[in-house]
């Protein structure tokens, strides 16, 4: 079959194979860095919102947090990319930074809502018990609520990162440059397509690589969950 012939051709030709590997490496790198940014940002925003619930002084920060999550979750990521790359960070040489930041900021909004939901889903009685013993809200949060919240949050965050991985495929709309992190797996597919006039073959290979990363993430998540659920086993 033509498809298998072409797939073989791609794997056998160093130039084409390298495009694929380069794209794979870049997609992975962008996803991981953006995920890291998203985690930190999301966690911060979630905590601010939670603590602002009984602390009036934090209210302005919570409002900023709300604007952030609403706007980012309410607009398409393609628009966010355009605005970041061609307006806000429209400085020559900053494209890679702008792209990674966009994905990180986007991810952060979703992660923050996941974390907030996870924290709020911990039974109210846990906080009450902690406070009744004289522990401060902060201590109760860190020693009792958070550890339990993480268990609730891990699956949702895992899903968010899987979504993030696939979202990075749109980076070519703001321009993808070989040799930089913007040359992602999807663009590699396009580039290989140019050379061998076959879109399906590189697409199948790329899909396999994406799948591989998703599988890897899913495994990691499962492992992490298993360890945390040691205290639940009945």
């Amino acid at each position, binding site marked *: 079959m033509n498809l298998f012939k072409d797939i073989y051709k791609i794997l056998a030709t160093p130039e084409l194979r390298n495009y694929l590997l380069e794209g794979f490496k870049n997609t992975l790198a962008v996803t991981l860095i953006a995920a890291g940014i998203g985690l930190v940002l999301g966690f911060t925003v979630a905590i601010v919102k939670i603590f602002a619930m009984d602390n009036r002084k934090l209210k302005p920060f919570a409002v900023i947090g709300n604007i952030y999550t609403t706007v980012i979750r309410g607009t398409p990521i393609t628009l966010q990319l355009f605005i970041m790359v061609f307006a806000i960070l429209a*400085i*020559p*040489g900053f*494209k890679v930074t702008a792209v990674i930041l966009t994905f990180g900021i986007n991810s952060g909004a979703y992660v923050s809502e996941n974390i907030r939901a996870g924290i709020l889903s911990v039974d109210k009685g846990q906080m009450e018990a902690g406070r009744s013993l004289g522990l401060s809200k902060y201590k109760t949060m860190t020693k009792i609520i958070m550890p339990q919240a993480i268990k609730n949050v891990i699956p949702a965050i895992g899903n968010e990162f899987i979504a993030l991985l696939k979202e990075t495929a749109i980076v070519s*709309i703001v*321009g993808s440059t070989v040799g930089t992190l913007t040359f992602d797996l999807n663009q590699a597919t396009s*580039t290989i397509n*140019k050379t061998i*006039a076959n*879109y399906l073959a590189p697409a199948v290979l790329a899909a396999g690589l994406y799948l591989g990363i998703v599988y890897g993430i899913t495994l990691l998540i499962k492992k992490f969950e298993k360890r945390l659920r040691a205290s639940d086993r009945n």
Partner: protein
Amino acid sequence: MKKIVNLLIVLIGLLGVTSCKSETIIVYTEAGFAPFEYVSNGKIVGVDIDIMNKVGEKLGKKIKFENVSFDVIIDAVGEGKLANIGAAGISITPERLAKVDFSKVYYQANLYVIYDVKNENALKHLMSDGNYGVYWSSLATEKGIAVQTGTTADFFLADEVAEGGLLEGTKVNFFSSLDTAVSDIGLNSDFVIIDELPAKKLVEGKANLRCLPLYYQGENGEPDELSFDEYAICVTKGHQDLLAAINEVLDELLQEDENGVNGIQALVNKHLGLN
């Protein structure tokens, strides 16, 4: 009641299928390449659209245009399941020929470079054929050169940035759409390379952008050569009836009128607003 509804659905489905099968031909295009295909008032229009509509008339069938990503046109038409014709200013390459049939060439376009006017002095040069243009070699730049993936400009540039090429080592920025590629000038790209007509359309109304044809510098007194691109329409292999009809229409259009302008050029002029 349920039986009647089911019967109705089947009937409507049959109607749809049969009417689709016999009456409508689907043509894949990428509507970001003025004046050959572009969007105006929400509809897909252009030279390729006009050509294909004539083919439809000849065959007595309706033509339906679908806007897809340029990358997938060759594959889809090659497979032949979703579309049998692709009209998108496509150029013939050996790899593409292996998958689809091509009509005759109906247009030859020169490759142009779009640049910021403040670089004009360094770029503009009087060529041996008496026209102004830009040498490929002048495009060596710190920033990158932007192209739309899969266009002839992309292919030409790929050769030149490779080892031994005129622009060895220059960065290439790939874009899926030309408009965005142009926004990148001054940012991460210094130039956009694309065919003449889209280039002229893209710089329209932008005070800071100009475009000029690209030339290969003639060595030792040889004339400077333009780089050009040739368009054809692709058809699924084995559809001789479609291919014949398309070639017939193209033949008719390629007849020159009393002013030496052929039908295709007339369409081009029409879509450029030059009539």
